[in-house]
């Protein structure tokens, strides 16, 4: 039997063959997601869904139209092609349109797909949820969480000769254990391309430990503190930094990386000299996609090197406008730090004289795109660290923090761990940051 991604490639080629437009690109994608959700100590909603879709973009000159369909029958494919062409014919020209990419040599995907994960059964998923609920029961806590396994496959073909496929799997487990009265909560999560890498009992015990220790938290006055941010606290903050990396907006004066007179801040040391930020389709630990924008072959891209803003992602359209190379990044951004602590979060705690340990940050939103100031709230167990050990639980805080400042103030980090981002991954470490702004107290758990 053909592998799923090859079935998709055949489907995409059918669409390509059905198109009479001079320029055509086709993406075919398939996903299979199966999950179990549990809360209040019981299973709630669970399910399994498979879906396949086709996205066809055609162009006549620079008049372009896109159609997406989930009807992948022969008729459905033909209809999608026709609809995209109809759109392209009646719409005005788009000066930002870039023609289909020619044949590419796609990098080989590394360790992204796992057969056992792709064939997970309902009983296996129930067992994972059962492990968490059992740890909760033994600890006298109420278990909630979510476990999902997914398989994803992609094929891309273009009328200019490009053709590539990719497949990946992912597994995640998150658990929140709370006391019966809802006054104490602890969270832990694990994410990996392989379901076998999730250790449900260990994760649940970590969440239980946090919930148990976070008893009768006291209030620290708002202000600036050294913060130890676990990866789940770093991830939403890093997402805003990554989202701001764009050459066009910097060139147009709409970015924190803009400089006066239409210049950019590329080349300036803007971050801690220990920080590097890059993505590499060949990364073995944080799997990437072989496809970059519009089906370009992904390649290694370094945005920050030793604290210096080395480059900003460049779209194909902007590359053409400014006579630059498209960045063709693979999306698996990794925040890495020289001298990362091998002991992870525990090592960061041990090296801290006084600081705040944050499990998770929630509802992060941009306050000021000019200096990347964001706001968000800590949740699910926050502690005071003194002389290298956790000394007491403390109430949650709202943080209001400039990310430019935060990523300058790095004092330590763990090795990056995989964190899901869309259909791919990011490499997110735990961080120790000095002078993080905890702006007000939150009574939430």
């Amino acid at each position, binding site marked *: 039997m053909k592998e799923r991604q090859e079935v998709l490639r055949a489907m995409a080629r059918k669409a390509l063959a059905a198109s009479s437009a001079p320029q055509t690109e086709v993406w075919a994608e398939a996903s299979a997601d199966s999950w179990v959700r549990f809360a209040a100590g019981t299973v709630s909603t669970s399910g399994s869904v498979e879906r396949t879709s086709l996205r066809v973009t055609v162009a006549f000159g620079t008049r372009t139209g896109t159609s997406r369909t*989930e009807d992948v029958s022969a008729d459905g494919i033909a209809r999608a092609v026709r609809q995209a062409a109809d759109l392209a014919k009646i719409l005005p020209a788009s*000066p930002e349109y870039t023609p289909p990419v020619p044949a590419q040599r796609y990098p080989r995907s590394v360790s992204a797909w796992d057969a056992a994960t792709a064939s997970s059964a309902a009983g296996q998923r129930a067992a994972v949820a059962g492990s968490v609920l059992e740890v909760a029961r033994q600890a006298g806590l109420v278990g909630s*969480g979510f476990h999902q396994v997914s398989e994803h496959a992609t094929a891309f073909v273009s009328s200019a000769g490009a053709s590539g496929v990719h497949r990946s799997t992912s597994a995640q487990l998150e658990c929140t254990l709370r006391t019966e009265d809802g006054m104490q909560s602890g969270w832990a999560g694990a994410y990996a391309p392989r379901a076998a890498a999730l250790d449900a009992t260990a994760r649940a015990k970590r969440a239980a430990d946090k919930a148990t220790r976070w008893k009768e938290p006291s209030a620290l006055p708002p202000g600036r503190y050294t913060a130890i941010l676990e990866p789940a606290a770093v991830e939403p903050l890093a997402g805003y930094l990554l989202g701001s990396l764009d050459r066009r907006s910097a060139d147009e004066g709409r970015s924190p990386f803009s400089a006066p007179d239409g210049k950019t801040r590329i080349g300036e040391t803007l971050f801690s000299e220990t920080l590097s930020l890059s993505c590499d389709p060949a990364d073995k630990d944080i799997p990437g996609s072989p496809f970059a924008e519009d089906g370009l072959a992904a390649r290694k891209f370094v945005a920050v090197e030793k604290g210096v803003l080395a480059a900003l992602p460049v779209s194909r359209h902007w590359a053409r406008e400014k006579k630059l190379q498209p960045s063709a990044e693979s999306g698996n951004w990794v925040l890495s730090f020289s001298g990362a602590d091998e002991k992870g979060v525990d090592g960061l705690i041990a090296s801290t004289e006084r600081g705040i340990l944050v499990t998770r940050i929630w509802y992060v*939103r941009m306050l000021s795109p000019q200096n990347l100031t964001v706001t968000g709230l800590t949740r699910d167990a926050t502690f005071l660290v003194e002389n290298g050990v956790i000394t007491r639980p403390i109430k949650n805080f709202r943080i209001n923090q400039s990310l430019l400042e935060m990523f300058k103030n790095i004092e330590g980090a763990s090795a990056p761990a995989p964190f899901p981002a869309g259909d791919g991954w990011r490499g997110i470490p735990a961080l120790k940051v000095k002078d993080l702004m905890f702006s007000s107290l939150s009574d939430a*758990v």
Partner: protein
Amino acid sequence: MLRPVRRRDLLKIAGAGTLIAATPRRAHSIPGRLREVADAAMAAARAGGASYADIRFVRTRAERLGTRDGHLTSASMSESFGAGVRVLVKGTWGFAGTQDVTVAGAKAAASTAAEIARANGRLRKVPVSLAPVTPVKDTWQTPASKDPFRVPLSRKLEILFDVDERARAGSAPIAAVRGWLHSISEEKLFVSSEGAQIDQTLVRVNPGYSVTVAANGDFESRNHAIAPMGHGFEYVEAAHLADDAARVADEAHQKLLAPPVEPGDKDLVLLPSHLWLTIHESIGHSTELDRAFGYEANFAGTSFATFPQTGTLRYAGDHVNFYGDRTTPGALATCGWDDDGVPTERWDIVKNGVLVDWQTTREQASWIGAAKGHGCSYADSWASVPFQRMPNVSLAAGTLPTTVEELVGGVQDGVLIEGTGSYSIDQQRLNFQFGGDMAWEIKAGKKGRPVRHAAYQSTSTSFWNALDALGGPATWELGGSMYDGKGEPMQVNPVSHGCPASRFRRVRVLDSRGSS
């Protein structure tokens, strides 16, 4: 001031002459092929041990147009069609979604759903119990006089290009003008093992634009305040978007040049284009019963409000009333029946300032001993499991014809806020911080100069208890979002919130840029 479409305009639109269906109205009997598919799913569910089952056939169509600086940047049509089968086996849910909408596909999905339910049965503490509902065979559709999918693309682009041209007519240092126009239709057919057969077509439009100005190494953006709505294209045309473009561009420039807000405890006058989001986050989410019972503890969070506080928890003063309503004309969550087949309705949530009821589904009614749910079940596609989602939760207007100017007139030192900006609230919906799209000082009862980076921080109950004056019915407007996220896997829910302009006393105002 912006000229958002007001409630009276909406009523005018909704009542304008003979309504033409957004899509052809279908008869009460479903096409034979789907009846056969539904029957096959029900039979397979029964064979798998299900005591209850339903199947939803959902076709979603979306057209998305995007422009920038006077040219088209994106144009796409998408269509999704499939069926979701939900079964209840010995009190445990199972679900499976399939694009194979055939007898064989439906049987397979029902069998998979039953297998999942059986596998999870040992984890179930208390069997699911569904409140009784009278199964109906009926149809419902969004009243719309112009099907957005039948309006020529050239007409839509004309509106967006006109916006661009008129935004550039003034002297503002424009860096970008972005426009968008999204049209979505959701056709769904719900069939249950109890005999329900409900055919609904929901149409929504989401127009808008944003102007960015840049000068001296700094930049700002200003958005048009038009809300997405459950209407046809007549809503987009009635909004006359381009008429406001020069003002929006000018205000973007004013915003760029404005001084930062002076922090401190101040009075606030909040316009509906802003306040709907504060209602959504602090009232809407805190009165979802699944949160209060811990069912969102791992993701979207819980609630500071608890069920035993029903009838005693004071959210606000006696003059403040919030209600759930999935029947409000034009609102995004309005429909005839929810995704459990329960008829939609209006009910009180906070009455005379006190929490009196919750947002509930059929399943949740049994948690609290209610005879029925309030019709709050929704799934965002055929591939998603229905669960409790927010209805339109609105703040009733004041009984007096109070105007915005009168609200401002009662403020010595305050801020007037329009449109939405940054928003963030804790997972129990208590501590929050909201910014706006545009803010002006209020001094000695008069609207003054624009100020920049204004945000306010408060807690839900102290904030709503600080509401001292409601605008009259003429100030009441709907705002809303197409993308309220909740659940795992996460689903999005379109939802609207109506409110009058309102005044709040002594709320902590901060300069959000200087707060780091």
